């Protein structure tokens, strides 16, 4: 039965996501390779891959924050607090490197605290330009990538030449193109996979060796493409927001459980992650810089955007034929907070109903969220 095969494959992805750092430790023991963690959103993992190391995008875990509260206030966002907490508890000690990026002031704080508390690990702070349009941003981006490339070469003892970087770009582009194929399949028939599984597949792509993930993804796609179409019943919804971290599965299940059908998204652990490839012609460092500067989707951690996020979102919602949008805001995520009023206004102007749901690292009462979502879905019918 194709369904059971699909479940078998998604279970493999889930096993990685459920215990990301335990699984990575085991992988390292078996493969004897270095692992470098990256904070989410902006850093090009290809650079680490080309150095012969395993790049992983740090994921928030469900662990209750304890020791971390001796390092950080509770009014920092969930992933910041969680990573500091597990970092100071020693759970990230298996990493050989940790690269944070200058997304927001909270990310910078996490980088600085972890550097101080993980002295045996190479901790880097990537300051890639946040502006798209300032003079010299391309040169500055290349300069910063070159600086980190040199540090990665020192860490691994291996030169990152253009040939190996191009090869890594190809490996990553292939994975992204398969994720886009999956996205298209799901968009056309959202009941093929629960949305929580879509999240697991994307998150696992950030944690597993890309080649291995790609192989499993190809198997999954070949099973899914052979399946009969399902009948889609429910209210079509676009899921937006949740930068840096994946929404909790409970929230996703709740949306689908009250009759919502998630047809498209712009989440970081969704379309945002795989929307755009890196060019394969010309200088590979320049190609990575170009992806950062010219091709990334509108994001509130950057400035001088070619298109504002709210406008982009309205266009995407319309294209997806969603009846409404669910805006997931991570509590204390300031970049998102400053965009939400504009998003709210733009959606209202485009006559797109929406509901904003604030999410937290700690378990919140889902009943209140359920009631609001139920009311929202009923309004859409």
């Amino acid at each position, binding site marked *: 039965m194709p369904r059971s095969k699909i479940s078998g494959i998604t279970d493999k992805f889930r096993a990685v996501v459920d215990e990301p750092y335990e699984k990575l430790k085991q992988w390292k023991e078996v493969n004897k390779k270095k692992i470098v963690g990256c904070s989410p959103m902006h850093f090009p993992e290809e650079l680490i891959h080309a150095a012969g190391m395993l790049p992983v995008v740090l994921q928030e875990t469900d662990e209750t924050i304890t020791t971390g509260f001796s390092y950080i*206030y509770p009014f920092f966002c969930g992933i910041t607090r969680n990573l500091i907490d597990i970092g100071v508890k020693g759970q990230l000690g298996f990493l050989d490197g940790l690269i944070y990026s200058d997304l927001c002031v909270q990310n910078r*704080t996490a980088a600085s605290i972890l550097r*101080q508390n993980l002295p045996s690990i190479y901790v880097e702070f990537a300051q890639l330009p*946040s502006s798209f349009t300032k*003079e010299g941003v391309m040169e500055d981006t290349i300069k910063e990538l070159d600086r980190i490339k040199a540090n990665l070469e020192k860490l691994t003892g291996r030169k990152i030449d253009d040939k190996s970087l191009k090869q890594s770009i190809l490996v990553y582009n292939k994975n992204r193109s398969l994720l886009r194929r999956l996205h298209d399949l799901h968009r056309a028939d959202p009941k093929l996979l629960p949305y929580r599984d879509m999240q697991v597949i994307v998150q696992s792509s950030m944690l597993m060796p890309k080649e291995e993930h790609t192989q499993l993804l190809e198997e999954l796609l070949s099973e899914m493409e052979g399946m009969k179409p399902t009948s889609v019943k429910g209210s079509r919804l676009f899921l937006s927001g949740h930068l840096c971290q994946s929404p909790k599965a409970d929230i996703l299940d709740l949306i689908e459980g009250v009759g919502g059908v998630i047809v498209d998204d712009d989440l970081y652990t969704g379309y945002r992650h795989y929307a755009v490839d890196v060019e394969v012609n010309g200088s590979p460092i320049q190609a990575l810089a170009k992806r950062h500067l010219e091709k990334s989707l509108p994001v509130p951690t950057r400035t001088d955007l070619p298109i504002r996020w709210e406008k982009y979102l309205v266009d995407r919602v319309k294209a997806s034929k969603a009846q409404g949008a669910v805006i997931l805001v991570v509590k204390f995520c300031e970049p998102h907070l400053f965009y*939400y009023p504009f998003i709210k206004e733009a959606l209202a102007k485009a006559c797109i109903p929406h509901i904003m749901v604030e999410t937290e690292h700690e378990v919140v009462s889902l009943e209140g969220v359920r009631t609001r979502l139920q009311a929202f879905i009923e309004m859409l019918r």
Partner: protein
Amino acid sequence: MVTQMKKANKLNSTSLIGQMMTASFADIKRQAAEGKKVVWANGLPVYVLVRAADMPVLHCEGLVAGLAAKRLEKPFQDAAEAFGLLPDACSYARSFIGAAKIAKGDYRLDPSMNQDLLLMPKPALYVNSAGGCGTGRPWGEAMATLFNVPVYHFEPRFLWNESDLKDSVADFVRQEQEFISLLEKITGKPYDWNRLKELLVEVKRAVTLRNEAMRLCQHIPSPASFFDWTTNIAAVAHLIGLPGTGDLLQKTKEEVGQRIAQGISAVPNEKYRLYWDGILTWGKIGVLANKFAALDACVVAGAYTHLVWWPRPEMIDPEKPLESIAYNCCDIVLLRSYEYRINTLADFCRQYSIDGLVISETQTCRAFNSHAFMIMDGLARRLGIPAVTIGGDSCDIRFYSDAQVDTRLQALLETIEARRKVRQI
């Protein structure tokens, strides 16, 4: 019998600041009415560059903190919340966005409110210079979108390694040059470099006088307090470069010197000398000053007053205006690593004979709160100096609790007292 509470002995010269602020807002409005293009700005004083282009500057922190100190900021926050901003967002930014909604006419003020105080002229340009705090980015973008005007984001680098300062300054100078080209486009006039040099002469005088006056507080008992330096911070922030700031700070320095000569202290019976890390709740500045004074505690120095606004006066050379501004925007404590912060703080503690540390838990500011607990721990380990955190927020008084401050402050002073006794044994 009525017991008289001991009160803070505030510097007389700080009372002049209120008049200067009122006059400056009136002047911005006058210039706008005469057709001059207004620039709105947040953060560090890179907007001195704008003054040389003969454009009036409305500085967020000057406007919002000034109103918050008088508890008049709420209409701004109401306007921002009506727009959809949640209270978890930086209250400076939130209030300034509220001011923008009011200026645009999107949010109507109650007719009973003081319109003149709350209604600002619209900008032709927005400048974000949030000292490397990433919140400045979406904040600046929001303001530019609301008014449909250009925005320039100054982005100093985080000094991950001590050696990064030189590169950061060079990069900042390049941004200043680009910004000046933008000013020339907006004004349609060549930039007045001579005027900028003149302004830097006044800036250097004001900043140097203030730093000298603040250093006099190493004297025991301290002639002035952190609350005095916070009250007159506008002289080196919102008002910097404007006529009269140097004279005001000259008076302040003289007053501080006279106090030392006459044996007058900021706190009538100084027993404890404290350092303040973080911003304070502006709406409670007077309450806090008196609260500490009543307990014989003088806050003699702080990061916000001593390490953020023009922390490198010795680097100001009017003949090199861009480098002068760059050093003072790139070498601030918020852009420094934990190691630098703890070393600097330890130096302050020795120079100012600090007994305890108060960390202001500014609820909507993630920049100032970055290493709070590590700093508390680090200082205790290095110098045996105890610390407490007290709740609050820069411009949102809802996060402040008198009872919590009382309890924690009492606990800090008891700890200091207990340690003194141990030392005596």
